[in-house]
């Protein structure tokens, strides 16, 4: 061993970003699922360009639709992530997603204590069709997962605003969207939020970026 550097962990601290998106049948209307696929791709590509010696973004992507929630990308360094493309179908098993998110965050092998606090991003246009209350309460109130930053977007009038307002870390983190266009705005907001944390000298002190004006979006 020639220098102190030989005894140091060579990877930056992980900054986990855990995304859970709705791919239920209703997301197939008014171009929402297409907007989501584009927004996710843009989001991943945007944060791939960020680089820091002090933090490395790790992404995990979950979705809920059909009959169950699925983990589509296990927690992975951002440089190795390929974005899936979703098709809308079935019900809204959001409770199943909450259970999976909690299992991931409680796992100290996947998210070591050296990590910064995770950010959870939730996007949905509907009401959960499975038992969501107990899994959500476990996620947001108990254990390690309760310390994650939680932000969410509710799209359209059918979304469960009451449930989502309880889910988010604070009221400012619930973004209300009217149309598919707002999905891309939301993910721009998420991108800014994540990159701001990554560049911050105190990534665990959360600051809320401003939502982007329509004019800044390039469709």
């Amino acid at each position, binding site marked *: 061993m020639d220098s102190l550097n030989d*005894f*140091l*962990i060579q990877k930056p601290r992980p900054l986990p970003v855990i995304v859970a998106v709705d791919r239920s049948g209703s997301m197939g209307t008014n171009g929402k699922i297409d907007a989501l696929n584009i927004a996710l791709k843009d989001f991943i590509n945007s944060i791939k360009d960020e680089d820091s*010696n002090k933090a490395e973004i790790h992404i995990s992507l979950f979705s809920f639709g059909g009959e169950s929630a699925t983990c589509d990308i296990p927690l992975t360094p951002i440089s190795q992530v390929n974005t899936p493309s979703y098709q809308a179908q079935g019900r809204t098993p959001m409770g199943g997603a909450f259970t999976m998110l909690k299992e991931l965050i409680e796992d100290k092998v996947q998210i070591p*204590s050296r990590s910064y606090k995770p950010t959870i991003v939730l996007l949905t246009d509907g009401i959960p069709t499975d038992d969501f209350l107990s899994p959500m309460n476990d996620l947001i109130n108990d254990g390690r997962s309760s310390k994650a930053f939680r932000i969410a977007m509710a799209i359209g009038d059918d979304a469960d605003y009451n449930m989502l307002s309880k889910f988010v870390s604070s009221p400012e983190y619930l973004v209300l969207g009217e149309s598919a266009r707002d999905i891309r705005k939301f993910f721009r907001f998420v991108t800014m939020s994540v990159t701001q944390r990554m560049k911050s000298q105190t990534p665990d002190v959360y600051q809320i970026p401003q939502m982007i004006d329509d004019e800044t979006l390039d469709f």
Partner: protein
Amino acid sequence: MNLKTILIQASIRGDKHEDIPNQDYVDVFENDEFLITTVSDGLGSSKNSLEGAQIACKSVIDEIQNFQLSSELQFLNNKIKEKWKKEIESISQNVSDFRTTNSFIAVFKNEKKIIVGQLGDVMVSLRMDGLFRHLESTSKDFSNETVCLGSGKDENFKLAMFEFGHTFDYLIATDGIADELQTEKIETLHDYFKNKFQNIEASRRNDSLKYDLEEFLNEKNNDDKSMIFIWSNKI
């Protein structure tokens, strides 16, 4: 007892906002009976945490000298906490502005005993007569989380007493260093420090250590970084 030790120590400010000083504090006390080494990490979110860190080190040094080895270790925990709180309350009503962690190692030279105390995430690793121990502090969920003095909760020092025969060496390091270390290499790090610094002139050792911390750690971690490493010659 004629206990000869070599000590290296350094404390550097992390790469953070200009108006925030280094909030770590390192203190060493030695006389014929005791060798007391203590490191505090003042919480960045508390405006007077450097003062809290200094007072924690002073409280440890004062109370260990008054401690009888025949007493329960819990008694030492209470005395240190009480002294720290009393000192803080004599200067301010807002104890939470002084929040700090603290770890210490106290060598009772004549009795050949070592007491280790940890409150928060200042790391301690200790090797006595060839037996290595990495003493985990309270487990934390994520980086920059810790229990501390002044939190408003009744946090306690995790205390342990050991006996040594011939030799010891130990490391106390704040999380700015500890979080970046490969756990499985910490014992080898002890050997590295001994081998490297015994060949450096005594007056230059601490500067050399400081240079290493600045060179290899500041680009990885914004926290302040402080450490003490001590090794004894064979008794």
